[in-house]
């Protein structure tokens, strides 16, 4: 089970209390985790990554295992601790703006 921590505003949108827990088939990557997140919570489509380009929105960051993975290509496998559920994949709103 993949654990995803969302910022408060996205938890509110998704009516989610706490972490999202997702089943991901195949390699655990940014893309496969976000695909699973958006399939389970369709109201989040467009909020983390662009509808068309599928690129991360500029003020959204991806952290895991105390590393900033925001600039990793979307198909690179995430750390084993994320794939095993030991650590969460964190979607973070950047510290910027009001």
């Amino acid at each position, binding site marked *: 089970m993949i654990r995803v921590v969302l910022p408060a505003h996205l938890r509110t949108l998704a009516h989610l209390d706490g972490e999202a827990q997702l089943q991901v088939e195949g390699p655990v990557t940014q893309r496969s985790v976000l695909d699973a997140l958006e399939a389970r919570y369709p109201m989040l489509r467009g909020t983390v990554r662009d509808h*068309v380009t599928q690129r991360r929105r500029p003020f959204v960051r991806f952290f895991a295992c105390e590393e900033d993975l925001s600039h990793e290509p979307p198909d690179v496998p995430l750390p084993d601790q994320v794939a095993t559920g030991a650590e969460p994949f964190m979607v973070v709103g950047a510290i910027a703006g009001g």
Partner: protein
Amino acid sequence: MSRVRVLVGTRKGAFVLTADAKRERWEVSGPHFAGWEIYHLKGSPVDPDRLYASQSSGWFGQMIQRSDDGGKTWESVGNEFVYDGVAGTHQWYDGTQHPWEFARVWHLEPSLTDPDTVYAGVEDAALFRTVDGGRTWQELSGLRRHTSGPSWQPGAGGLCLHTIVLDASQPERIFTAISAAGAFRTDDAGGTWQPINRGLQSQTIPDPDAEVGHCVHHVAMHPSRPGVLFMQKHWDVMRSDDAGNAWHEVSGNLPSDFGFAIDIHAHEPDTIYVVPIKSDSEHFPPDGKLRVYRSRTGGNEWEALTEGLPQSDCYVNVLRDAMAVDSLDSCGVYFGTTGGQVYASTNGGDTWAPIVRDLPAVLSVEVQTLP
């Protein structure tokens, strides 16, 4: 007994203010979508409990929310606004060409006849429409593809389509306004568009009477008198008596003809309201006095309405979508400020009182008169 519902969009959420027809005691609901910018929310004229809200954030982009119970509960609907075909480019601040990029929805205009049909004015400027209650949105790209499109350039607030006026007498006619391109009209339901800016004079562009390039701030039309339009431009209050084919200035004795909001009395189509703002670089009322100006003559002759409004040390702004009227017998007039106040008049503007004083900066005010 009739009721009034005031829909307020702010920098940090939406608020719903309700009262009975006396409009003395108000119930405040909100913030809805706390922390998000709510540029605009508006109800369907044919199903007043059907509301649509534009919710956006610099972090998480655009959401559209829909309520089917007058704002008690909300549902996220479609938020995919994709330009039709190759988006192309428009003029950027430095004169170079810049790709059309969707940023946010500024204005939602529900259809006059179908609660599932809504028009959305967006930044970068384009007009979208849903016919399925907001689940999917399609661009009416004839507007953006007008031959003048590559010459459109953003105003200080972005290249935004902020005004949509529907005409009940001619369902295929729509008016829009874009900062800083000007006003446009379609007579074929959005297929083709023509600029309607003849008579506008803007000293802030190289050719003051150019066909496009004017920073139109807002346009209002009374439903009983289609074709008569009132416009608050960047500078100048304007009037057209022929659906925008030609405009003439009606600023008259206003202390400043800069401003954003303009609206029309519900029962008197020649009674119009503006809130003069000092200048384009000083977005506050002249002399620190918050005054609504009313013309009962369709422009040119204006009177200051001050009773109940702060007449010293007031430096708020009133934005383009932040004024509205109800349709009770004694017409109510409402406006919101960037200081977070929403003022109401129950007598056509003669006297004013705040409904709320301390909201986040108000971006939009709409009013529903309920049976």
